[in-house]
């Protein structure tokens, strides 16, 4: 019996010693401030590895507004149903930032390539503003453009106030202004798709170049819904309705449990299927823990199915979690409500 105990003690001590030895040969005792390896594999440079609040989605199949790409000299955006062919020797040098917490997207930034031979230069910004989350009191692309004109900084002079124009078969609201000191012109053409104002912003000192670029917009493809005051989804895509996730439309609601406070706005676009269940969640800006908790909750929400012409249709709407940003009040802010 005593012999058995001694053997057991020896085994325990041996095991303890081995575990200490293993620990000593494991990660550095400091836990990470020291390394003796002079040639480890290096992290890649110029890569954002640690993201803060960022965009994400509940699935990787459903198209997203920020999912557009320039490929083969064409900017394509499946979510918006938009394709735009770049002029010859123009390119996208840098990608844009993630969507902002108030729903502003930089979709593409286009400029002359290094091999560009032209004498005049310009810059094209393709951007979108989610009308569910805009900070400005506007309900459609026309109102938002008018607001921009009214809020124009004294640094600029209006050359052409917002006006409806047609380019090819497409309708836009066009707004031109100039900076006299910089001798630069801005021509802005906006339309609305799926409750987003989609903007093409041309900047140059050469107005002829700008006009030729604008005329080329006639070749682009846009969905049938696109227009300065239309653009509310429907057809092949869900109908978009501001604030649908409120009041009697919500039959069942589970609040997300978020353990850590971040104090940021968390704008979320959801697609509700014909049965009133959430089928897709898109976070414009959220920390990963927020996205997880909110997704888990939203998939338990139940909505009153939306009827259009007596038939159930899918609905896309926005929900703001976290700390909602302050917005100016306006009677027109409900314009995207049906």
């Amino acid at each position: 019996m005593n012999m058995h105990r001694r053997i057991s003690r020896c085994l325990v001590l041996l095991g303890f010693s081995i575990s200490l030895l293993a620990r000593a040969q494991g990660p550095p005792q400091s836990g990470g401030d020291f390394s003796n390896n002079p040639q480890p594999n290096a992290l890649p440079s110029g890569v954002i590895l640690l993201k803060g609040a960022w965009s994400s989605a509940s699935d990787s199949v459903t198209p997203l507004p920020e999912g557009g790409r320039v490929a083969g000299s064409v900017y394509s955006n499946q979510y918006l149903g938009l394709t735009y062919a770049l002029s010859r020797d123009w390119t996208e040098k840098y990608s844009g930032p993630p969507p902002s917490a108030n729903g502003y997207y930089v979709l593409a930034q286009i400029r002359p390539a290094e091999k560009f031979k032209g004498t005049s230069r310009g810059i094209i910004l393709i951007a979108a503003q989610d009308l569910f989350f805009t900070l400005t009191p506007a309900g459609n692309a026309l109102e938002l453009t008018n607001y921009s004109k009214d809020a124009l900084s004294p640094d600029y002079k209006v050359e052409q106030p917002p006006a409806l124009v047609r380019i090819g078969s497409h309708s836009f609201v066009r707004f031109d202004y100039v900076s006299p000191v910089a001798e630069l012109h801005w021509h802005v053409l906006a339309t609305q798709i799926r409750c987003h104002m989609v903007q093409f912003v041309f900047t140059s000192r050469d107005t002829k170049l700008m006009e030729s670029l604008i005329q080329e917009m006639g070749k682009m493809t846009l969905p049938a819904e696109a227009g300065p005051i239309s653009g509310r989804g429907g057809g092949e895509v869900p109908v978009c309705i501001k604030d649908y996730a409120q009041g009697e439309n919500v039959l069942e609601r589970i609040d997300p449990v978020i353990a850590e406070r971040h104090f940021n706005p968390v704008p979320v676009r959801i697609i509700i299927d014909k049965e009133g269940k959430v089928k897709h969640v898109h976070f414009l800006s959220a920390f990963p823990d927020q996205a997880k908790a909110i997704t888990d909750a939203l998939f338990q929400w139940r909505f009153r199915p939306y009827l259009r012409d007596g038939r159930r249709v899918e609905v896309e709407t926005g929900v703001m979690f976290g700390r909602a940003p302050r917005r100016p009040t306006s009677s027109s802010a409900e314009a995207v409500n049906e």
Partner: protein
Amino acid sequence: MKTIEFAWVYALLVALFFPGMAFAQTDPGVRSTTGVNAGQPLASVTANANDLAFFQAGLEQFNEHQTVKGDNPGLGPRFNLDSCGACHSQPAPGGTSPASLIFPNVGSNPQSQVIASGLVSGSTNTIPFFVVANGPVREARFPFFFNANGTANINAPNGGVEDLFTVTGRADAGACTLQQPSFTAARAANNIIFRIPTPTFGTGLMANIDDSTLLANHTTQATNRLGIGGTFNHNGNDGTISRYGWKAQNKSLMIFAGEAYNVEMGISNELFTQDRPLPGEDQLGSGLPANCLNLAGTGYPEDITHSDGTDAHTVTSDTALFSVFMQFLDQPTPSATVPGGAASISRGRALFSAVGCAVCHTPSLTTQPSHLTAGLGDATANLFSDIEIHHMGATLADNVSQGGAGGDQFRTAPLWGLGQRIFFLHDGRATDLLAAIEAHEGNGGEANIVEAIFDQLLTPGQQQDMLNFLRSL
């Protein structure tokens, strides 16, 4: 004689036919002909004897060199330097990183002199590779903890400050034995980033801008057609907008001072009450060794409010005096004429707004009433910042998260006093304004359109006006 005439003709022809070449835009460099235009107390502080005494006591403390033991105890056991004023010295106490050969010739990078000056032992410490005599004062951070094989573990974010030096080997450090972090290995793993000191001029005004003013400015700028978003970093305790540090991670000057005293000099205080181990020692290791604790022999915290003091500034803790000093520092005074003349500066200011720089670098914001001193209340703070954090993209990303700021988000750097700064961007990588502006573009950044307008669409003359304006600040 003929050679001279030919040279003049040639120069004229170049100017006529290649105006871009003849007028290549250049950074005018540190403004040196207008005197030192920063570092003074607010006029209302100067006018009040008590406030001025506080300011001067704060200045004295700001510049005081700390030791491990003795009259100014608490240094270490790890630190980046031994006084606030050693790092924050360009062009005056409260500023940023100095240089010996550039106006006002404050001196070499003091971190490069620590062995020569006897601040650290040369037998136990080496000067890290990124500290050079003509370079900026730097702190280092490892974005990620190391794996056992020396690679960066991207699933284990670190980002804390890795102090450069230890007290080991100093006569007043006893048996405390610490090694410096593995900076060379971190470089090999591409797992090291740097920060330079932020200037503190005018920071009392920044403290006194109400959140509502910042939010209103954010809303006003939301209709920009330049690709700019932006958001705020928030204080985790009360949820209000934080505003100090490269990522706006610090709420107040008191916190800013307390953290720096603890992190940069290793001095515990009433806000950060323990000696600080390295991030790995603290989070994954066993903390500081026992023989490196309480080296000052005073107990903790090392810096305290002195109940045995006889007047305001002998009662007040060092941390509070630092805070008062910074709070009372006036904003830098721009020049109306230097460099380039009044007309060029005026055009440059207008261009700065017109091309969109001012969307983030908001020229001025108004403060709320002040209980501290009249000069801080209802004042115009010409800070050229919106105090928001913006995605600056992959070019500038440091992969360090602080508060709500992610790896590529930085606070819009206030530009007041820019005319007399030597090093630019969070890590001091640039000494030329054009290089600093160029670094504003990159994949995922919010400034790409504005940078492209500056770079591609402005004439060299317009660019020069903007550079002159920036160096006038």
